[in-house]
């Protein structure tokens, strides 16, 4: 034989699966929810999405090239996923500097500080969102009315926000309960309607409004084997059981489980945020514990805390528990001697 042949250990073939395919698969799965946000919030949503993605990819590139002196790896698609997820967690028509700060926090602090892809303990998009929520509480909880392409592209911060924005259904319920109203009367006088939750014509951040679009994304990711059912199902089931018990005690003080599941980013969180590979546990058993934790913390925050939502905090808290879960919750070993 004249030329050299390769000698390497087995296996000698590869599935062809790659980081890029997985990340772009997630991007495809997010498309339905993204299109719904464009439909309801028009240019304001398109602008927020584009700026968020561009900032995330841009910051990753700049940090890798000039600070870490690495070969930039922005083509792997992970920064694009973070950018879309960050946009999904923002109201439309947000001023540009807030979005850029959010992206810097998400990529710069949430991801690259820890060593980049695969090393971040917390979901980068949520790090960005929670930072913004704490820094700009008014802007982050006032949602432009869903008026399609009549929704303004941009609402400057000094405008009279209340004239052009509304609250989320969860916010309305929280506010109403604080004022001593019953659930029935809150639903009646705010015109709260479950079909709207499903179709997306409610106030909220870009990605959380339409349950059907998020569920299409989930089905796509399950078929493509990008994620497994364990995390989304355990989160939703826990929230259903926990809120169901409370609702069973007193349906006039506690909203029903379906309301809790369809509003306030539960589906967005359960399908796209909590399933983030890097920050979630590594085996089905651990993933179920993690999902239950997120469900319980979400309901506790919503029902007993000051924030109407709670999914973001719940996921970040459970992200913190992920290394512990990985250390002590092991897959079922073959032939384990009991």
């Amino acid at each position: 034989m004249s030329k050299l042949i390769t000698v390497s250990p087995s296996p000698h073939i590869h599935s062809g699966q790659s980081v890029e395919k997985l990340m772009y698969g997630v991007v495809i799965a997010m498309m339905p929810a993204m299109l719904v946000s464009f439909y309801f919030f028009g240019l304001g949503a398109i602008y927020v999405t584009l700026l968020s993605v561009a900032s995330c990819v841009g910051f990753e590139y700049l940090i890798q090239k000039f600070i870490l002196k690495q070969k930039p790896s922005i083509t792997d698609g992970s920064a694009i996923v973070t950018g879309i997820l960050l946009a999904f967690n923002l109201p439309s028509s947000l001023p540009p500097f807030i979005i850029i700060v959010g992206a810097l926090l998400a990529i710069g602090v949430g991801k690259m500080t820890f060593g980049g892809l695969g090393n971040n303990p917390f979901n980068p998009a949520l790090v960005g969102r929670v930072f913004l929520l704490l820094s700009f509480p008014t802007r982050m909880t006032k949602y432009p009315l869903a008026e399609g392409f009549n929704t303004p592209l941009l609402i400057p911060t000094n405008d009279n926000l209340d004239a052009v924005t509304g609250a989320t259904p969860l916010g309305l319920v929280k506010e109403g309960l604080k004022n001593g109203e019953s659930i029935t009367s809150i639903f009646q006088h705010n015109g709260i309607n479950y079909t709207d939750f499903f179709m997306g014509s409610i106030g909220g951040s870009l990605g959380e409004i339409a349950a059907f679009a998020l569920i299409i994304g989930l089905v796509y990711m399950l078929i493509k084997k990008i994620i497994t059912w364990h995390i989304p199902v355990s989160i939703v089931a826990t929230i259903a059981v926990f809120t169901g018990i409370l609702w069973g005690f007193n349906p006039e003080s506690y909203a029903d489980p379906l309301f809790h599941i369809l509003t306030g980013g539960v589906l967005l969180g359960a399908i796209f945020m909590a399933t983030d590979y890097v920050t979630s546990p590594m085996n089905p058993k651990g993933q179920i514990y993690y999902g239950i934790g997120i469900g319980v913390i979400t309901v506790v925050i919503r029902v007993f805390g000051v924030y109407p939502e709670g999914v973001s905090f719940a996921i970040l808290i459970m992200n913190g528990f992920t290394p512990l879960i990985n250390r002590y919750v092991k897959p079922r070993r073959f032939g384990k001697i009991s």
Partner: protein
Amino acid sequence: MGGVHPPENKLSTKSNITELPVPKAVIIPLGQHLGVPAKPLVNKGDDVKVGQLIAASEGFVSANIHSSVSGKVLKIDKALDSSGYTRDAIFINVEGDEWEDSIDRSPEIKKEISLSGAEITKKLAEAGIVGLGGATFPSHVKASVPKGKKAEYLIINGVECEPYLTADHMIMLEKPEELLVGIEIIKKALGVSAAIIGIENNKPDAIEKLSDIAGSYSGTTIQALKVQYPQGGEKQLIQAILKREVPSGGLPIDIGAVVFNVGTVYAIYEAIQKNKPLFERVVTVTGKSISKPSNFKVRLGTQVSELIEAAGGLPEDTGKIINGGPMMGKSLASTEIPVVKGSSGILIIKDEESKRKEIKPCIRCSKCVSVCPMGLEPFLLGVLGEKSMFARLEEEKVMDCIECGSCSFTCPSGRPLLDFIRFGKSNVGRIIRSRKQS
């Protein structure tokens, strides 16, 4: 549990088993089996016949070695084998093709088993039979049920889950009657009445053929299995058929099972009924670029290059030559390597398919965990191996790894998980051995 679905690429299923011409010279390594290498019984210049014992087993876990050709012993010297190391081997120059008279070369199938169970086991040792699926574990050891244990089921491995390989498939198609007699022989040696042949659904012709005639052999049944790699692994096959798990660190006999590969069963039939020791076997020669993917009956000691030549020659764009299948086979450094008892196939991989993917950071997707058939965490074992954290590796059950390669195969980041796990395993194994000694 776990598993992957690599493309099957069974290119050689249309090619009947053909006998490769006797080579001009053979190199017969002394260590072709798991255990202690055999001790040579011949010297330079000795004349040998086909089937003559030329090296004797050393101890219980070892195997006899017979000459595959007739001729003159050229020398006993070091030779490169598929492991990449040079090891002791007997070089024989071929003269004619003169067989030992004791070997029954008639084509008829002999069904009646005249030997007793103990005699069968003894004869398996004499004939140098080892597991031909690749592990090359001496068959007489497997057929000897240890005191205090009881065999309940004989399981026959006709899964051949490695992509490309078809040697076992062809044996099932061409030698079904011999296989069923071989199964009766092993049943007798083990003292069991039930045998189950496990075959994956991608070989419907083999399932049909064996089912047709299995009716006349009581206690032997065929079980069709869904296609999944690594179902041909001993522990995985037992789990699929009996729904029992071999305990960690234990053996199949601990749960009443004994597994033999189809190729081994055929060799056992020949050894017991035809008095023919193990000196030839069926080898698949295949690959996308190979012009005539084939199944050859090959005399052990024949060089790999001769097999490739007979299958149409080595293509220009060859990047890798593998002894075995693409998932668990060993890549060869040269084609000047002898076929041995454990050689199930020669696979030629094209240049563009022979390079590994670029290594990216682990994204913790947990796909390696979900495909691991042993319920291990390859991502973790890989990192622990890389960092030489052997105590923790042992705690995380690294020794349970069967090295099926599903983790590396599936990793989207192209991480060489199994490389690091093997490194860890070899070190943990060394530590465990030294602990036992002290």
